[in-house]
C-alpha cells in the first residue's frame, strides 16, 4: 500500500510528522489516477482531466504528486530537477509516501520530476533504454502551467486517429527538435507526461511531431 512501504531513507521522524498527507484511499485513488495516466499515454496529446483533492508541498502540483504516488516505489530511482531537489518538504514527501530512492545522475533515473519546464535538461541525458530492452527508459513528469490541445504542434502516430494539436506553456527552446530526435531513436527513447494543475497529457516516444 502506498505510504505503508516507505523506507524512511533520509526522512527523520520530524520530517515525517511535517509531511503532507498522501491519498486518503491509496488503493482506489491510485487506480483512478492510473487510468488517467493510461488514457493519456494511449492517446498522445489528448488532455485528461484529473479529479484530485491532494495537499502537496510546493512546487509540486496535485497531478504530479498523484502520478508519483501511483507509479513510484523503491524500485524506481527518481531524479528531481536542481530547483525541486533543494526543497526539503518535497523530497521528504516523495521519499516518505513513495519510498523511492532519489538519484543525482539523471541517466540512472526511471522517473524524473521537472517542477518547471525551464529546468528541463536535454532529453538525451535520460535513459532511453536499449534496442533489446527499450522499456528500460525514463518517464519524465514535466510540470507546465497550461496545456492546450487546440493549437500548437501537430502530433501523429499510435493512439491518434489522424492528427492531434498540442501545446504546453513554457517549454525550453529547441524542445520540439529534441522530441523529434527522441522519436527518431524508436524503439529507444524517453516518454513524457505533462502535468498541469488539474490535467495531464502524455507524449510517448512513438509520437511523430510536426512543428
Amino acid at each position, binding site marked *: *500500500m*502506498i505510504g505503508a*512501504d516507505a523506507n524512511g531513507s533520509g526522512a527523520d521522524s520530524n520530517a515525517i510528522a511535517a509531511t503532507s498527507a498522501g491519498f486518503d484511499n*491509496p*488503493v*482506489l485513488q*491510485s*487506480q*483512478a489516477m*492510473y*487510468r488517467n*495516466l*493510461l488514457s493519456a*499515454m*494511449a*492517446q498522445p496529446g489528448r488532455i485528461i482531466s484529473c479529479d484530485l483533492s491532494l495537499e502537496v508541498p510546493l512546487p509540486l502540483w496535485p497531478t504530479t504528486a498523484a502520478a508519483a504516488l*501511483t*507509479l*513510484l*516505489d523503491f*524500485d*524506481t530511482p527518481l531524479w528531481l530537477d536542481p530547483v525541486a531537489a533543494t526543497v526539503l518538504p518535497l523530497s521528504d514527501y516523495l521519499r516518505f509516501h513513495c519510498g523511492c530512492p532519489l538519484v543525482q545522475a539523471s541517466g540512472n533515473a526511471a522517473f524524473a520530476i521537472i517542477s518547471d519546464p525551464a529546468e528541463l535538461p536535454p532529453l538525451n541525458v535520460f535513459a532511453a533504454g*536499449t*534496442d*533489446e*530492452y*527499450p*522499456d528500460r*527508459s525514463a*518517464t519524465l513528469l514535466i510540470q507546465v502551467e497550461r496545456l492546450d490541445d487546440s493549437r500548437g504542434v501537430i502530433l501523429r*502516430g*499510435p*493512439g*491518434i*486517429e489522424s492528427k492531434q494539436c498540442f501545446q504546453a506553456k513554457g517549454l525550453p527552446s529547441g524542445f520540439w527538435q529534441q522530441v523529434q530526435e527522441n522519436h527518431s531513436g*524508436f*524503439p529507444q527513447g524517453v*516518454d513524457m507526461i505533462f502535468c498541469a494543475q488539474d490535467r495531464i497529457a502524455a507524449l*510517448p*516516444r*512513438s509520437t511523430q511531431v510536426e512543428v
Partner: protein
Amino acid sequence: MTQAAQNAGMQVDQSDVTGEAKAGPDPHYNFAYLDEQTKRMIRRAILKGVAIPGYQVPFASREMPMPYGWGTGGVQVTASIIGPDDVLKVIDQGADDTTNAVSIRQFFVRTTDVETTTHTEEASIIQTRHRIPEQNLSEDQILVYQVPIPEPLRFLEPRESETRKMHALGEYGLMHVKLYEDIATHGHIATTYAYPVKVNGHYIMDPSPTPKFDNPKMHRMPALQLFGAGREKRIYAIPPHTAVYSLDFEDHPFEVQQWEQSCEICGAGDTFLDEVVTDDQGGRMFVCSDSDHCNRHQEAAE
C-alpha cells in the same frame, strides 16, 4: 497456492453467470486481489508497452489463484487497471458462459464487486481468450487478451537472447520464410490461429491464439488493446487507432477464413463460426462463436 487464494479463484458457481452484485468486495483480499506494489510494477510495464507498441515488456508475474493456462497474464493486467466504476465482460472462445470465463468473472466480482455484463457495448473492460468480439469496440473500452506464448518467433528460434536481437534489428526474414514454406507445402498460408502481425510498421507481434479472422479488427481499433502472458511474464500493447497488418506476400495476400454457410441460429453471414456437435448421432451445425453477438442478432431478427 494458499487456501485463501483457492477460495478467491477456483470455486465456480454455475448459477452466477453474470456475477450478481454483492454488498462490496470481499474484505479478505486487497481490491482486485493483487497487492499494491505488484499493481504498480504491472502498471509501469503497461505504460511502457503502450509507449512502445508491439514490444514485449518483461514483468514479474505473480502466482494467481488459478493455474497457468487459465489466463493469469490477462487476469493480472485486468486486476491492475480495474476500478469500482468499470463494467467487466469476460469471454472464452467468444462465449461468456464457459468455465474459464465464469471463473475469471467471479474472481473479479468477489475481489472488486465490479459490475459485469455479457453485452459487448456495455463493457468498459473486456477480458478475452481466443476471440475479438464481432461488434466494433469504442475508444472508451479496453480489450485485455490472455496470451499463452507471446513470442511470435519462439517456434523458429527457441533462444530468448536471439529473438530479442531479431526484434531489435527488425530481422524478420525467418518469419517470412516460415509463412512461405506454408505456401510451398499447402499452396496457401496454412496458419489460421496466432497469425503474426506487424504493429505500427515496427514490431512483429503474436495476436494470441485468436483466429486470423479477427486480425483485421485489430487494425486501427479505437479501443486500447493490452496483452498479458502470465507464465512467460510478458505484457504488450496496441494503442487505439494503431496500424496492425497481417504478414503476407504480394502473390499471396492475407485472407480471412470464410464459410459457405451462415450461422444456423441467427443467420449471420459475416461472423466467425464454430462447428458444434448437436447430438450423439454425429449431427453438426455451424453457429457464431461470439455468443453475445449471436443472441443480439437473433433478437433483432425476431
